[in-house]
């Protein structure tokens, strides 16, 4: 997934995987999941979510990721 919107990969190519993405992030942030994976997925999905204008959904995921990072100071410096 593009890390920068200027690379120009269209959202249509990834849009079919939105449901998988949501499920994976939900699992990652769940007690059974791995928050590192969820945070990485959240960061990687930002350009796609922005292109699809899923702003509220993105904001919720980003806030969740930032909250997890605040609890793990080792990761806080990178914040994505």
């Amino acid at each position, binding site marked *: 997934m593009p890390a920068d919107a200027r690379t120009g990969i269209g959202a249509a190519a990834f849009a079919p995987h939105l449901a998988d993405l949501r499920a994976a992030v939900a699992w990652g942030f769940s007690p059974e999941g791995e928050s590192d994976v969820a945070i990485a997925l959240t960061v990687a999905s930002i350009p796609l979510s922005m292109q699809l204008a899923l702003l509220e959904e993105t*904001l919720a995921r980003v806030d969740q990721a930032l909250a997890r990072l605040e609890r793990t100071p080792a990761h806080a410096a990178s*914040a994505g």
Partner: protein
Amino acid sequence: MKLYAARGVCLLCQTVEPHTQAAFQNALELAEPVGNRAYQLLGLWGWWMCLYLNGRYAEALPLAERFNAVAAASEWPCDRLAADRVMGISHLLLGKLDKALPYLAHAAGPSAKLPRAQRIRFLYDERTLSHVSLAHTLWFLGHPDQAMLAARQARADAQELDHPVSLCYALSEGVCTLALLTGDEALCRRRSGPWWSRHAGTGSRPGRREPRCGAAFSTCGWATKPRSTDASTLRPRTSARRSGISHSRHSSRQSPRHSPAAAGLYGGARLHQPRSRVGDGDGGHKLPAGAPACQGRNPPLRRKPVRHPCGPSRCWRRRALRLAKLVTSPGSCAALPRSQPLRSSQRRTAQDARVSARPDPGPLSPKGEELRTSEAAYELLEVACCCRLATRPGTA
């Protein structure tokens, strides 16, 4: 860094409050030590947007210069064009038109041919934004024809890119604004009707308003206080609910767009002295002393009425109603208290519902004709509705 930047962008689309600015500042703080120019620019842009939307223009210019310095070292041409636009708008908002014009002309110039991915660098199409601000600058400089051309070019840019958000911006900030500033007096009166009747048509100062400026600035969201002699008293006219933007965005007493330019122009004595009587057939309305008047070099209002097959208001209301039905959730009408008497607006809606049952008269006018304000407004409404639908979570 990326998370904070994303948080800032998401918040920026909803509200412009301190935590929105803080998100961009956090992204900037993380990007600077690692030398990530892309996120430095994003952080600076978001911070600048917060200042700009909250009317803190004096603080916005230094930040624009900082943005310009970082963008100068960027490998992406779009960053340098964005820097030109940001610089141009910052000068425009301070009323420094001569400084704004070269920046905006360069940002909107033919050299700015970029691939789509680079053109939409900061939420909107850069060329569209540049042309819109260029149109405003040209109008304030007294070149209404060139201003309208620039506004139309903004719309063409957005259409070429097929980017609804940019198209909405081009219509609302460019085409509609310029159409009102240069065009249809009847629509100006209609659009500014409530404001007009509240402040001018009734009360102790009948007719002490200039309909053209009042409508234009009211539609842009701003107008002047009665009898004001101080340009700093320009105040918002559009409610947060109506504009769909949070209150914090309107917390400033000054406009996010037009009032500073008007204030700068007025303060710099660029505007002509208020005319004692404007136009003919407008009731001889007088300007209040100190109101930011339209420049005398701009042409008089076009008085040619908009012709529709079945009358303008009926067509307009019918199509607006259709759009309203499109975006209104199914249960919302049932929630209206039926036992209460209908207000005038509700009576009009009921009348429109009857009108809408009649056959559709077809398009309002052939395509390619000169833009008419009502059509532009209709188009704006349609695009805004599309944007609203498109940005609902889960609809993609």
